[in-house]
């Protein structure tokens, strides 16, 4: 069974239709790359999955449970949306780290706040917080940032900041990890370290959706690729097939602009 089922998503900003009839599904352990030019709607789609935008139509199901249905207001209650968000992790283009916290605190903060809702929090406060702390340190170590735990974001390079952001998203163990152009805000020489981390996540069978402009990366790392244009899905299929042998003319045109770069 698919871990994610997106059905007929449609989204308008005022009178502009930015998403139209978007449907796709994703299997557990698979990674999906979404490509397309700026303004094609791919970032909006990712924001819809994370409840940062509310689709005007359509539904989203995780593990077979409908977590959003535009025609059913019961699925849109604020208190429930907060829990449902945790199915997804999100890594932003501009990192959005919390500047007043150290790298480690950025990773552990949300989990600490969530743990306060546990019934046994009061009794086991110290143990729980210690565990979260240890887990945060381990995650940062996995990102190659063991030495940077106590640095503030402003003391880190862009690549390091984005790796902290990835650790922060992973800390809540999301079912699906979303990346919104994770390397676009980075200097070219810093993209490698971030892509390397994402590649290793893919190797560990992390379920991911990656909006990216890195075609070679999408081809080598993603299992599936969706090409979007003008708010619709133009083509989808296995990564290597879509990128190397696109069936649609629009896909071909788009990819030819990246040919030089490859």
């Amino acid at each position, binding site marked *: 069974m698919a871990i994610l089922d997106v059905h007929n998503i449609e989204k308008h900003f005022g009178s502009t239709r930015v998403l139209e009839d978007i449907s796709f599904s994703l299997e557990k352990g698979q990674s999906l790359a979404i490509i397309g030019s700026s303004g094609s709607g791919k970032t909006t789609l990712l924001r819809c999955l994370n409840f940062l935008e509310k689709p005007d139509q359509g539904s989203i199901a995780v593990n077979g449970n409908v977590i959003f249905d535009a025609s059913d207001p019961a699925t849109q209650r604020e208190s429930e949306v907060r829990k449902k968000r945790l199915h997804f992790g999100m890594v932003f283009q501009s990192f959005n780290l*919390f500047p007043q916290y150290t790298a480690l605190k950025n990773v552990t903060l*949300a989990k600490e706040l969530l743990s306060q809702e546990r019934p046994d929090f009061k009794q086991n406060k110290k143990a729980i917080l210690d565990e979260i702390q240890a887990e945060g340190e381990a995650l940062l170590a996995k990102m190659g940032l063991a030495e940077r735990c106590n640095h503030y974001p402003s003391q880190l390079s862009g690549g390091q900041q984005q790796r902290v952001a990835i650790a922060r998203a992973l800390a809540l163990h999301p079912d699906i990890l979303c990346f919104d152009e994770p390397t676009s805000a980075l200097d070219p020489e810093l993209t490698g370290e971030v892509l390397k981390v994402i590649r290793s996540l893919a190797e560990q069978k992390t379920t991911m959706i990656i909006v990216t402009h890195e075609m070679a990366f999408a081809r080598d790392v993603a299992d599936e690729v969706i090409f979007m244009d003008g708010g619709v899905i133009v083509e989808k299929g296995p990564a290597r097939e879509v990128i190397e042998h696109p069936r649609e003319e629009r896909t071909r045109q788009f990819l030819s602009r990246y040919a030089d770069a490859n």
Partner: protein
Amino acid sequence: MIEFFTSDTFQTVLAALNSGFLKTLQIFFFTLVGALPLGLVISFGSMSRFTPLRWVTRTVVWAIRGTPLVLQIIALFYVPGIQKWFTWPSGESGRMTAVCVAFIINYACYFSEIYRGGIQGVPKGQQEAGQVLGMTKSQIFFHITLLQMIKRIVPPMSNEIITLVKDTSLARVIALQEVIWMGESFMKGNSGISGLVWPLFFTAVYYLVFSGIVTMLLGKLERKLAFFQ
């Protein structure tokens, strides 16, 4: 020179100015304690998505910021009694209460605009990052937005607070005997001394020392918040 500072006259004036300055300090601290939180509440009102509330709040802020504080003090102290709504407690305490209420309302409106700028100045991405991590609105405000907002508002807030130090002198319009009133009292007569102008100008020393201390403390706070950007 030394004789002057040890003279009875100087001691008498100093004692009077001290008692006046104590009231100046009271106005200052009561206003801060009341206006800092009230300003936050008003700023939420002025950013509310509920249009009538936003509209009413912004109109009130406009009216308060657009009229002189001295007029607000006079109105707040005399009108309730004249209109038989209620009377302020008699004596110094009633005047002090009325002055503080007027100052708190006035300064809360100024603070609310600074807060609004501070809150809206925090990038939207910070809120979104909190949202996708499953935080509640209040968790996002207290754990993420608040400190960044404070860092942003400290410089403009410092200006307002220094202005407040000096604005306290407006309280003498309803005969609250703060330090300027006491300074002036030696011109017309106080404790058998009259025709002295220097006590009035000597009050400047109090203001300078106090605003110096306030400036230093606010500077310290600003440096304390310099650990992040």
